């Protein structure tokens, strides 16, 4: 199976949960390289993240999380659409961001 190396930045709390010590991580994601495929690979690699980014069953994004790529908010784009070329080439990381909310 062909894969693509994707760089991902996670929010602090999820980095802690995944026991990541670096600011970003890299994943070998099966092609076609969509947001959905990236999240499935991330959850398989770090099972503690299951349910924290999207619902276990519906796979719906949790409301206060956003996905950014190449300085664009791609949160509301199809999770099955190909990711931007700069993400696929490794030039840019995919950002998973906690919305600014709460106290």
């Amino acid at each position: 199976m062909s894969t693509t190396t994707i760089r991902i930045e996670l929010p602090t709390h999820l980095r802690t949960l995944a026991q990541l010590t670096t600011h970003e991580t890299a994943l070998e994601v099966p092609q076609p390289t969509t947001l959905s495929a990236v999240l499935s690979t991330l959850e398989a690699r770090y099972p503690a993240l299951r349910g924290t980014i999207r619902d276990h069953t519906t796979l719906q994004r949790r409301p206060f999380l956003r996905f950014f790529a190449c300085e664009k908010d791609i949160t509301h784009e199809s999770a099955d659409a190909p990711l931007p070329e700069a993400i696929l080439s490794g030039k840019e990381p995919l950002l998973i961001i906690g919305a600014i909310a709460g106290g």
Partner: protein
Amino acid sequence: MPGVRVLVGTKKGAFIFTTDAQRKDWQVSGLHFAGWEIYHLKGSPADPNRLYASQSSGWFGQLIQRSDDGGLTWTPMDNKFTYEGTPGTHMWNDGTQHPWEFKRVWHLEPSLTDPDTVYAGVEDAALFRTTDGGKSWHELPGLRNNETGPRWQPGAGGMCLHTILLDPTNPDRIYIAISAAGAFRSDDAGQSWKPINKGLYSKYIPDPTADVGHCVHHVAMHPSKPSTLFMQKHWDVMRSDDSGDSWQKISGDLPTDFGFVIDVHAHEPETIYIVPIKSDSEHFPLDGQLRVYRSRTGGNSWEPLANGLPQQDCYVNVLRDAMAIDTLPSCGIYFGTTGGQVYASPDSGDSWAPIVRDLPAVLSIEVQTLA
């Protein structure tokens, strides 16, 4: 050497306090799970080093953590809480029906005999159980599917199942309580349930004596008298001597009978503790004076306990799961406040001292008495 371990859940993480039987000098461990809401932590009675914690966040949802070494290290466990079958609907605040939606785990109640078995009370109200140490959770759907379910509705804190009591003399008997539905009992290990709210009177619902709809805040039981229950309702302190089949008001001479916590002395089944709060719209102690009230007569006659507690300008709250009692010969009482103080009394409430003063708002307190 005997001692105690106090487990503290707060709005921004967890803390663990340890001390010896004197309960004067405390070691504070934490902050665990920094930045996360820890609604509840509790240890297994069958294995004191086995702890479970409910960790949640508005951003990242629900997690369950488990420790096998008394809280030194933690491992995330399964966090999938899925209602069995079609979830159905319950009453919403506007009187319409609303689908059941899982939000968080409010309370974890480990089995009295098996460290791998734990009950979880969740919002929207339902009861889950693990029998494999938290590797998987399964609903006991008989409760949510009770015929009264469509008439349950959220209290101000959500429609939460916050109290789980296991009868030490009868493994098939479980009590639970839900805001705002009331108390329920199972006599078949959680397969089927009946509301046990006869005698409750809640003037804020259309039928004040309805079988469900009551905002029960907490229920407590002494293990030597498991048929006697004590309840802090939204308003009213109540007791039952027939396993919840009927309730009597025992507010007696309390200055106010609104409150959240209620607990029972470790060695005196008729000695009970509450923290009166001014009213349902003013969640702080009367006159800015933080006082625990104790009844040595199973209710009706109460005495204020104020020695060592702030007696002016105190406007904290004490939430429903934020009181616990140890079982040392001189019974220790503990409670936490929304102002971040945790107070301890090593002498059954006669005197108090803060263990800490400046934690995040305290959501829950549990205590383990260590051999």
